[in-house]
């Protein structure tokens, strides 16, 4: 009976999300499965075409190829850098600073604003050829390139923006760091361990569950990034498809080129890619994630 009550409370807390999922998300998911086998221009009824969309995707869409390459580059660079940066700051903030709350809030602000269109617009202004960033470089006699409108650099400006939004990852790291018992460090100090050794032998292993969590969430979010690329490239994914992240190309196919069937198929491919990545993370996790309670 006691147990039943616990479950009930759990489901009660889950309910708002569950209602939203059933009413707003599940239907569209099923519909997109069906649409991925059709040719659908949004204006007239979908037409069944079997596997055609999937065939085109793998054989005959050079822009999709560009888009996948750009997305992998974005994910593989921004995720590790963002985690490393967030961890570094979390460790710094965990050194018993005075006014910790103040710093924590300050560092969290970019993440609060981060998803918004306004920040992307601001980013565009800052890293424009004649933006503030290049004007600062000019003081030191450096002539900066057009960070956003040059295809060699544009993706890095998106990666930079992603790293800058490290706040929520940092907060979770900070909470994880606070969980590590101080006695361990004290004992290690007595045994003569230095800072690096303590970090490698105590902090990192005990933090792995938090790293695992942050890595998974950040990875999924990165694969789905849309707003930044859309706003900064003016909706084009340009120059020369250099910022054509997967979600942006999917949007373009569905809403600009009116190929919603194809866009739905792309969505399922993205799901498969994300599932593969998280699957690998979960499968390997037992080799590198350590739970202090043995994972029970």
């Amino acid at each position, binding site marked *: 009976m006691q147990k039943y009550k616990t479950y009930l409370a759990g489901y*009660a807390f889950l309910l708002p999300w569950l209602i939203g999922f059933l009413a707003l998300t599940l239907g569209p998911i099923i519909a997109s499965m069906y649409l991925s086998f059709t040719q659908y*221009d949004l204006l007239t009824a979908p037409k069944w075409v079997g596997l055609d969309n999937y065939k085109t995707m793998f054989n005959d869409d*050079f822009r999709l190829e560009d888009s996948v390459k750009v997305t992998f580059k974005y994910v593989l660079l921004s995720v590790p850098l963002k985690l490393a940066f967030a961890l570094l700051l979390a460790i710094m903030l965990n050194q018993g600073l005075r006014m910790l709350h103040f710093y924590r809030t300050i560092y969290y602000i970019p993440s609060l604003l981060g998803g918004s269109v306004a920040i992307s617009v601001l980013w565009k202004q800052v890293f*424009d*050829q004649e933006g503030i960033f290049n004007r600062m470089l000019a003081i030191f006699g450096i002539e900066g390139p057009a960070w956003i*409108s040059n295809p060699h650099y544009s993706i890095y400006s998106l990666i930079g923006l992603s790293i800058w939004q490290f706040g929520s990852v940092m907060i979770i790291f900070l909470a994880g760091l606070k969980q590590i018992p101080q006695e361990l460090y004290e004992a290690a100090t007595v045994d003569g361990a230095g800072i690096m050794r303590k970090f490698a032998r105590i902090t990192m292993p005990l933090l792995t569950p938090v790293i695992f969590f942050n890595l998974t969430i950040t990875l999924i979010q990165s694969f789905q990034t849309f707003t930044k690329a859309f706003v900064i490239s*003016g*909706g084009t994914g340009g120059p*020369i498809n250099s910022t054509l992240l997967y979600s942006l190309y999917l949007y373009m196919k569905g809403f*600009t080129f009116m190929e919603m069937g194809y866009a739905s198929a792309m969505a399922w491919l993205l799901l498969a890619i994300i599932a593969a990545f998280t699957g690998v993370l979960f499968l390997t996790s037992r080799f590198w994630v350590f739970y202090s309670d043995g994972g029970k």
Partner: protein
Amino acid sequence: MLNRKSVSFLMLSSILALAACGGNGNNGNQGSPSAQPSSSASSSPSASQKPAKDVELRMAWWGSEERHEKTLKAIELFEQQNPGIKITGEYSGFDGYFDKLNTQIAAGNAPDLIQMGGNIKEYSGKNSLLDLTPYVGQAIKLDDFTPSLVREATDNEKVYGVTLGVSSSALLYNASMFNKAGIAIPADGWTYDDFKTVTKQISDKLGKGYYGSYDLSSDSATLASYLGSVGKELYRDGAIHFDKKDMVDWFTMWDELRKSGAIVPAEVQVANPPTAVDKSLLVQGKVAIQSGSASQISGFQALTQDQLGLVTYPNGPAGSGMVPPISGQFITAYSGTKHPDEVAKFMDFLVNDPEAGAILGSTRGVPPSAKIRDALSAEITPVDKVLYDYISLVSEVAPDVTYQQFPVDSEFIKLLQVTSEKISFGAASIDSAVDEFMSEVNKLLEKAKQ
């Protein structure tokens, strides 16, 4: 937790919400238009039959700030004359306008009144637009329109739109920059050689950061006119009428201009796209020439002290490749509108009401109604005069062809842009970029046939 009381409360409120959504549907206005012959153009404020409930319409358009203000003012006037009808404007820039519209149509909640461009037939062919034929001659008077303007909005012998303004593609130039550089302003009949000379001179004389022209290699209107001027054609009847060599010539010409410094470098072009009026370097007095629709001149001129003007695209060996003036924009109705009568009434108001005509001016091109046009010519503003003169000039010089738009236009534009960027950023050679362009164009033609 939920109990019976809260469940029934939820049920009740959702029923109310549903009822609210459907509320406007039952005003009995769905009968045939001839049932209400009195709903014609210049109705007095004391409308004979005031609807029992306010009718609310939504209207979507794109444009610059200047067009937004004028359109909102015209709507206000209409609302004063027709108590009981409210029109909410849903306006934006051109970027993303059709993306949003597609989504709204798919979801079944598109605006009642929709501004359309040359792609009107993509929508009428798919039953997204209301057939206006029953209203023409009744609520909507098109008597003094040039017949070709009505034809452009006609598909399968049904009228789907009303022309809001006549325009033509054009080169917009910044006359003040020409004067500053001490160079004669280009005139109709100039050639691509003249273009090369003039743009180079401007770049040289005005110095770093100033350019003779935008890079128009990515502009489909300029390309269409260029192909015409060398005796080819961009598109007609399901096929392209140019070959690889023409495209190689085209991109080579722009590549030479780029290398000589006559046109803006690739990075500047991407950062300041000429399509966005707030970014246009023409308005900022840094680039002397850009391509656009002639009617854009009023929006552009409103933002600068510099003197702007319009000139035709350069001639080639086969003469002028200009396309005759066409309907720049249409006002159309969503096929799912619940108030077709009010919609028709407002459409007529936009093009035939003298006061509305005076408010709107030439913000969407030269007004299609001869009466309004004459009234406007009587007290014409300088910028309107530039537009009027240009449109009548183009009517004279353009070869007598019926214009056909490339069927999947938005994709063609995107393809041309990416090809142009590959060349301008040096990511591909002209030859390989054009090969890819030609094969992609053929795919687009295939798609259009489906």
